[in-house]
């Protein structure tokens, strides 16, 4: 009796099932429980169906009777799940025990049910059976793949076998004989073409098939690379190539039917013979002398007659005007009667068929005259037979579509069939005869022409001279003799150079002779003296002259007397020079005039600035402003004139530096903004293309000048409305941007006619414009010249009373930030001037006064000199620290004076040139003369101070990097932070009022700024507008121009949030700076 505990039993039978008497399932094995825990305590018959043994129909099995046999149970809830095992009755407890294991069909089912090998008893092989099954499945898959591979290989083999078969068929299908024999001559392989051969002829002996190969094998060598032989077999000629295959001890023999080529060889031979005859005949006609032509034709007729086996050969001419034909040449074989005398002016009507054929360009051929119909004595047969003609061929001679005659050949002794080749030969011969007769005609024609031209040359208006290589005259025509004044007799044999030329002409002729030697023809003008000693100008067309062998034998010249044209030309040149001199004088006058005006202008503007620093009452301020504005205007006019004269003299050179286009725009907006504002018109920038490069390369100063000019015009001619400036990028190629700048106004506009003349100098629409608007009329002309110098274009469109648009199109190089010039700080240490002794040299008293006044204001001591001699004298007498030296002075000019000073070894004193004629590049000139720097007149205070201080500062000169110690900030030379002129004009001399206004501004501007910032934060645009409106007058009266536009825009209230923020920040910053400055102001 074996007994297990429950644990052991569960391990051995993890799928057991215990069923009670009431048929309820009372216990389950661990693995079955893992699978279906729900079946515990359920009624067995309700959830399991006995599949085997198959129960009797419609009866449920009595499971207690199912012991001692194999049972397969099916779980009704999972029809795919079967259990295979057996029932045992446990008598003691009246229970039924099922012991078994699941019956899976594939190992995949285990995965589905999450069973692992651990769930099966170790003795249970069902897992291994499934594994084995899976393995078989995999093997079957592999076998399937093997079969596929095999099938593929089988198909490939089939294909290969077919290919091999086809390849093998290839030699078999060869129409040429292929044979393989061993060293004894036994045939190993023979293709059908080879097998068909029956009898062979080799070296004039005949062999049957097999015997031949045995014979030939004795001649063949296995160790010789390639052998060959030829045979005749069955009426054909074969060439065989033998390739010995040493390793197999046999020969592969490849035959080729060469019968056609042998036949062709024979034909070729005949052809060559024919060609030789042709060559022979044709060579006779090449370069033949005309007088020998008839003889040659006679001989050719004979040669041809012999070749075609004719008995008579002849040539006839057709005369269609008389409707006759005549025999011109005849050859007859010995014993044949000549007929030429009888055959003259024979009516064409005798042989109409003949003529008809020839007219069509066809030969007339009768192979056998006796076969012609017998139609009486006037028929063709009737004419030919009495001459003994048996066969005949005649070929037409046609030149330029015109039938001129024929060539014929008669067979008299026997009939002769003219073969195709013979007919071709005769045709060619006809062509040759035609050719030679044509040549004969054309040479005759040429002779006539030559005579004609000789007459022309002799009598024409051009002088012709032919000389040999030594200039000896060989020929001169009548006209040349007339031109030279010598007779042909006097000229002949003499040297043309000696007779006609002066020394200079000899050289020229020598040069020309060298050219002729190199085979070069050319035209030239030369001055000659005729026999009478008169000077003449000839135009000569000379060319080298060669003989027939191509050797240079001299030269030919065609001469035309151009003496009168020459005189006219001279007069014209003189007239042109006079005109140019006059223009130059005008330009010089303009340039000098402007210089002469600039010099005193320097004094005027300098003095105005000095005067402005003094206390003035309102009238004085008004007068001064008027003077200032007049001086400014005058200066603009002078600058215009000077610019124009520079441009015309080609002396205006442009800068090539980096600049920021937006900066240029901002500047002109600032400068012109208040002008527009003064006139009450809007000045806007509607477009600035963001694609425009931040930095461009060009001349920003001249661009600025152009824009200021165009905008001031626009503002000048606009009474209401607006002026708008646009910057657009039109196109871009590589490094270049094409930028279009537009300035449009709503002004008075122009008539179409005037727009055409707009760019002409000194041009204004009518004189009333000058009276009303002023200006020189040079502005647009200068703009155009400058734009064109920059490689650009300027265009204008205008409608009278509606407005004008000016467009400037400029191609500009793109630049980078590093191309921008480094800006110098606008600060000068003027303290250095204190107690320095400065010599101011200028012949103009006023100019001296300006410079002296400015410099002495900063503590400098001044010496003056009004010419170079005095300046040298002063330098020698006093310890001068620095010299300002005018260039143009009487007695001794600045350059010479400097040279003398430097020669005296006074090198340490800086000398600064003053000049009104400073052009770009002049600095080099001054520096070369020993000067240190230069100032262009009119200079402003800042420039004068900056330059003098720079050269007085020894330390700075020695150590440029040294930081400046005490900087006194000077007013910005270009833009002031503020300007109290307006305020002062409001209350001339009333400093108390002015101070009060300034204090008020300081207080109110700060509080207003705070208000405007708050309004922005709360997005209260209306409030911003109101505050801006309130601030505008005080900013204007303090002349804070840099923010006037921003304030106006804030007041208008059309800006984006971002731009409002920007404007507020800018205004805030500027007002803060102004307030700081105002702290220290002394009125």
């Amino acid at each position: 009796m074996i007994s297990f505990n429950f644990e052991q039993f569960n391990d051995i039978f993890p799928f057991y099932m215990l069923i009670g008497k009431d048929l309820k399932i009372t216990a389950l094995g661990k693995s079955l429980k893992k699978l279906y825990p729900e079946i515990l305590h359920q009624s067995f018959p309700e959830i399991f169906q006995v599949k085997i043994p198959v129960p009797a129909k419609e009866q449920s099995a009595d499971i207690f009777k199912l012991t001692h046999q194999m049972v397969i149970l099916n779980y009704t809830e999972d029809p795919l799940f079967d259990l295979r095992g057996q029932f045992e009755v446990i008598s003691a407890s009246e229970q039924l025990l099922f012991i078994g294991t699941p019956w899976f069909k594939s190992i995949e089912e285990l995965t589905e049910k999450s069973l692992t090998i651990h769930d099966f008893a170790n003795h249970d092989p069902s897992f291994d059976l499934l594994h084995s099954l899976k393995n078989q499945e995999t093997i079957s898959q592999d076998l399937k793949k093997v079969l596929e591979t095999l099938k593929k290989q089988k198909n490939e083999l089939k294909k290969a076998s077919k290919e091999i078969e086809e390849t093998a068929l290839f030699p078999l299908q060869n129409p040429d004989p292929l044979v393989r024999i061993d060293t004894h001559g036994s045939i190993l392989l023979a293709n059908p073409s080879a097998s068909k051969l029956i009898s062979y002829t080799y070296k004039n002996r005949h062999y049957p098939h097999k015997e031949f190969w045995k014979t030939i094998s004795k001649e063949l060598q296995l160790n010789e690379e390639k052998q060959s032989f030829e045979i005749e077999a069955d009426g054909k000629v074969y060439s065989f190539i033998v390739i010995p295959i040493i390793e197999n001890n046999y020969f592969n023999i490849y035959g080729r039917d060469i019968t056609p080529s042998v036949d062709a060889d024979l034909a070729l031979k005949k052809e060559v013979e024919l060609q030789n005859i042709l060559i022979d005949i044709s060579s006779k006609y090449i370069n033949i002398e005309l007088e020998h032509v008839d003889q040659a034709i006679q001989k050719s007729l004979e040669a041809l007659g012999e070749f075609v086996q004719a008995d008579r050969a002849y040539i006839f001419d057709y005369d269609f005007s008389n409707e006759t034909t005549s025999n011109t040449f005849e050859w007859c074989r010995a014993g044949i009667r000549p007929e030429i005398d009888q055959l003259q002016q024979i009516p064409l009507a005798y042989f109409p068929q003949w003529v008809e054929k020839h007219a069509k360009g066809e030969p007339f051929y009768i192979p056998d005259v006796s076969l012609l119909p017998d139609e009486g004595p006037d028929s063709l047969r009737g004419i030919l037979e009495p001459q003994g003609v048996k066969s005949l061929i005649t070929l037409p001679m046609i030149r330029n579509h015109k039938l001129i005659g024929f060539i014929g050949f008669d067979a008299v002794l026997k009939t002769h069939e003219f073969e195709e080749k013979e007919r071709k030969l005769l045709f060619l011969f006809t062509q040759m005869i035609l050719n030679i007769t044509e040549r004969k005609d054309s040479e005759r024609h040429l002779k006539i022409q030559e005579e004609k031209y000789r007459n022309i040359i002799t009598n024409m208006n051009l002088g012709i001279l032919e000389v040999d290589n030594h200039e000896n005259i060989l020929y001169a025509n009548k006209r040349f003799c007339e031109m030279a004044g010598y007779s042909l007799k006097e000229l002949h044999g003499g040297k043309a150079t000696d007779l006609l030329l002066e020394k200079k002409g000899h050289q020229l002729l020598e040069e020309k002779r060298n050219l002729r030697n190199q085979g070069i023809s050319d035209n030239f003008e030369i001055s000659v003296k005729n026999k009478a000693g008169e000077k003449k100008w000839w135009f000569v067309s000379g060319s080298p002259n060669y003989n027939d062998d191509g050797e240079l034998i001299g030269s030919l010249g065609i001469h035309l007397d151009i003496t009168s044209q020459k005189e006219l030309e001279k007069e014209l040149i003189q007239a042109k020079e006079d005109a140019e001199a006059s223009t130059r004088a005008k330009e010089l006058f303009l340039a000098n005039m402007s210089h002469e005006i600039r010099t005193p202008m320097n004094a005027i503007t300098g003095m105005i600035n000095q005067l402005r620093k003094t206390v003035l009452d309102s009238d004085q301020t008004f007068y001064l402003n008027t003077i200032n504005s007049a001086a400014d205007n005058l200066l603009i006019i002078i600058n215009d004139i000077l610019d124009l004269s520079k441009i015309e003299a080609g002396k205006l050179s442009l800068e090539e530096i980096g600049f920021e286009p937006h900066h240029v725009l901002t500047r002109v907006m600032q400068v012109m903004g208040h002008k527009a504002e003064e006139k009450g018109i809007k000045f806007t920038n509607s477009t600035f293309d963001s694609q425009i490069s931040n930095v461009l390369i060009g001349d920003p100063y001249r661009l600025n000048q152009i824009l200021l000019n165009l905008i001031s015009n626009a503002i000048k001619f606009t009474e209401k409305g607006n002026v708008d400036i646009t910057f657009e990028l039109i196109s871009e190629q590589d490094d270049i941007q094409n930028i279009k700048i537009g300035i449009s106004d709503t002004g008075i506009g122009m008539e179409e006619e005037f727009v055409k003349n707009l760019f002409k100098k000194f041009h204004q629409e009518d004189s009333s414009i000058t009276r009303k608007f002023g200006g020189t009329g040079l502005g647009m002309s200068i703009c155009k010249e400058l734009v064109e110098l920059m490689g650009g274009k300027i265009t204008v469109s205008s409608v009278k009373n509606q407005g004008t648009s000016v467009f400037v199109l400029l191609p500009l190089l793109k630049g980078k930030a590093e191309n921008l010039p480094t800006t110098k700080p606008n600060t000068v240490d003027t303290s250095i001037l204190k107690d320095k002794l400065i010599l101011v040299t200028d012949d103009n008293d006023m100019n001296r006064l300006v410079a002296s006044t400015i410099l002495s204001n900063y503590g400098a001591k001044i010496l003056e000199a009004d010419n170079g001699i005095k300046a040298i004298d002063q330098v020698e007498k006093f310890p001068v620290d620095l010299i300002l030296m005018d260039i143009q002075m009487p007695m001794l000019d600045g350059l010479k004076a400097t040279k003398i000073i430097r020669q005296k070894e006074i090198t340490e004193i800086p000398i600064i040139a003053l000049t009104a004629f400073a052009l770009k590049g002049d600095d080099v000139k001054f520096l070369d003369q020993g000067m240190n720097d230069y100032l262009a007149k009119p200079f402003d205070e800042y420039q004068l101070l900056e330059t003098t201080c720079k050269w007085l500062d020894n330390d700075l000169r020695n150590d440029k990097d040294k930081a400046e110690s005490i900087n006194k900030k000077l007013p910005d030379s270009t833009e002031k932070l503020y300007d109290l002129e307006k305020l002062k004009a409001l209350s001339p001399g009333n400093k108390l009022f002015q101070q009060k206004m300034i204090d008020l501004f300081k207080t109110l501007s700060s509080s207003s700024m705070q208000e405007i910032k708050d309004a922005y934060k709360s997005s209260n645009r209306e409030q911003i507008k109101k505050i801006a409106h309130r601030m505008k007058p005080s900013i204007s009266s303090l002349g804070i121009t840099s923010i006037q536009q921003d304030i106006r825009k804030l007041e208008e209230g059309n800006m984006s949030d971002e731009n409002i923020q920007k404007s507020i920040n800018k205004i805030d910053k500027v007002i803060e700076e102004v307030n700081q400055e105002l702290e220290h102001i002394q009125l």
Partner: protein
Amino acid sequence: MYGIVNKAIEDLIITQYGEESWDNTKEQINLDIDFFLINQVYDDQLTFQLIEAAGNVIGKSQNELLKELGIWWIVKLSKERYGSLMTTGGQDLREFLINLPAFHTRVMMIYPKIQTPEFAITSISRNNIQLLYKSKRAGLVNFVYGMLIGLAKLFSSQVKINITPDPFHPERSALFDILWI
């Protein structure tokens, strides 16, 4: 060795390195077998020759290639051909490794001519299983190493595997220390 190993080498080389590499490998050892039958036993020598030649062709050491083959065996071959069989070995890496000796014994039953190595679990803890590998064949330690890496990939387990070769038979036996991280 059963053809399945040679077949695995072929599949690996063709799939990963191209048909030409496999042709070159065959050429190197003058192999004239077009198809490996998976349940046919081939000479062990052939398998080692294949490994050596393929390593030369693709420029890898034998050990590297064996390791790659081990990974390939599990991740591609076993998964694709015997996917369900693999999962009956266990629901996760740990269970699989524990069942491995029994699993392996059952495999032995299926392949009667197999010269099977022995696997034994020498230590089990929560984070670590030590597996002892012993074989009559030399030179396949890295193949087993690759298979263990492949198993970790198959069950998506993050493990670190340390190999301690048997000091007496380093070519035939090794202790694999599998550490869960």
